[in-house]
């Protein structure tokens, strides 16, 4: 199967891919494999019992990357995929996943990706996930990503998740369990417009001794859009957990932010912060004094906020 220009545009947006990437990759379009490359340390094997792939990363794999973008462009297609990532011991790898939807018809299109990470002792994983949709069709573009993370002893995962536009409806569930000394950092960036709906649920179980997490979300809701952010951190041991939601609300949008902390140990230290507000008037005025129009000022403020 060939990639057309729309596909290439989507790949650029969701995976920063201008050309075929270096290292291991698996490009999926409309429920089918387009191309795949494995490396000496990273193996990709199709599942036989359900759609999806198993990824095996050997112990000690350092400075390697894996790209697994998904494109949905077929009218009416609802793609469901299960990807399991087995990351061995003492690795340091970057994984870029992303889903781009090009919707040109009145039928709904969507992608539900279930990603499970099994990260062994001492490994570091940077996981980047971008969601984006475009096209002139009136059909809904629906994304419901599920991410399951098991972090082994002294392992570290940084997850950057970005949804910047065009997704009609999304429900994102992320569940993590941390072992001794493990660390999880999540940075979420979401912008909704029109009548879009975005729901995010984080659930982090801090089970191990001296494990920690930061779950940080920055969100902008415009026009009639709706956002729900829920973040649950359970401190079951000597641990540190922090969750923060910072949202800009505009026009007639609606935002719910619900951080929730549970401690089952006197040694658990947990913090939450949530703030929702409109763009500060003085910020707009300041940029106007530099020669920007009100609209230009708003755009710069949002661009910075979601940087």
């Amino acid at each position, binding site marked *: 199967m060939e990639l057309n220009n729309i596909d290439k545009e989507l790949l650029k947006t969701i995976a920063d891919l201008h050309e075929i990437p270096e290292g291991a990759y698996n490009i999926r379009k409309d429920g089918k494999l387009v191309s795949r490359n494995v490396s000496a340390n990273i193996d990709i094997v199709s599942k036989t019992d359900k759609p999806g792939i198993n990824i095996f990363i050997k112990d000690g794999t350092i400075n390697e990357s894996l790209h697994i973008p998904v494109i949905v462009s077929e009218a009416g297609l609802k793609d469901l995929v299960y990807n399991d990532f087995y990351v061995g011991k003492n690795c340091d790898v970057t994984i870029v996943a992303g889903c781009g939807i090009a919707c040109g018809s009145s039928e709904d299109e969507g992608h539900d990706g279930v990603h499970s990470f099994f990260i062994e002792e001492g490994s570091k994983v940077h996981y980047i996930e971008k969601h984006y949709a475009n096209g002139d069709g009136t059909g809904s573009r629906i994304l419901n990503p599920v991410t399951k993370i098991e972090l082994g002893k002294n392992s570290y995962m940084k997850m950057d998740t970005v949804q910047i536009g065009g997704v009609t409806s999304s429900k994102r569930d992320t569940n993590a369990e941390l072992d001794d000394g493990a660390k999880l950092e999540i940075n979420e960036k979401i912008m909704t417009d029109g009548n879009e709906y975005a729901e995010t649920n984080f659930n982090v179980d801090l089970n191990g001794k001296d494990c920690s997490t930061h779950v940080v979300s920055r969100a902008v809701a415009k026009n009639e859009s709706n956002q729900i952010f829920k973040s649950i951190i359970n401190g079951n041991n000597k641990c540190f957990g922090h969750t923060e939601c910072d949202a800009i609300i505009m026009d007639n949008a609606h935002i719910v932010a619900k951080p929730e902390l549970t401690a089952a140990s006197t040694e658990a230290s947990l913090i939450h912060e949530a703030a929702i507000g409109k763009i500060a008037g003085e910020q707009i005025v300041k940029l106007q*004094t530099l020669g920007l129009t009100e609209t230009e000022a708003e755009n710069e403020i949002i661009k*910075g906020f979601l940087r």
Partner: protein
Amino acid sequence: MLELRDICFSVNDNGKVKQILKNINLTIDDDKFFVITGPNGSGKSTLAKIIMGINKPTSGKIIFNGTDITDLSITERAKLGISFAFQQPVKFKGITVKQMISLATGSEVSVGEACKFLSDVGLCARDYIDREIDGSLSGGELKRIEIATIVARASKLTIFDEPEAGIDLWSFNSLIKTFKNLKNKYKCGFIIISHQERILDISDSVIILSNGEIKEIGSKEKVFSRLSEIYSSCTKLVEEE
């Protein structure tokens, strides 16, 4: 040249009309340092905001280089060449110092150029260029970045609202040098709102504002005695209360 003709500004303060500026008449020539001084609450910042277009005068006219700008927006005035460094800098999550300088100059600045503006205000540029202009910076740092941003614009008329606040003596000297260089290089006008004698020293003209009125305009020597009068009457008032 900037002309203020009979500018008044009042606000509604709990149902009562509060007059903040009363019949201000003033001509600011190009290529000159004007310093506005006067007690806290006398209306200095309000006057600056009226020139920039942030506040609209209740009555009166503002003429800038022959154009009536009374009804022009902030953006339009900025484009005509008026700049304003705020007394209290505004914070922005995610916007870096370099980006802000680029926004101010209207084009992407190089690291070298941005560094030059920052060193002018006594900041070690490399440490700051990629910092976000947010709560992680101290008050003094924010203030210096604010000034550097405005200096970078090199506008025809620039207003600095109490630039000395948060700046140490050494940087203060370099700031005065920067102002002088700008004046010589671009032949532009400056209005500096200040309480600092050092800034009064370099001024071509001092304007004393008290209770929303201009009490005196002239050279530092000429207005000095008047200044001490106004300040001592203020302290007396405080003592009497």
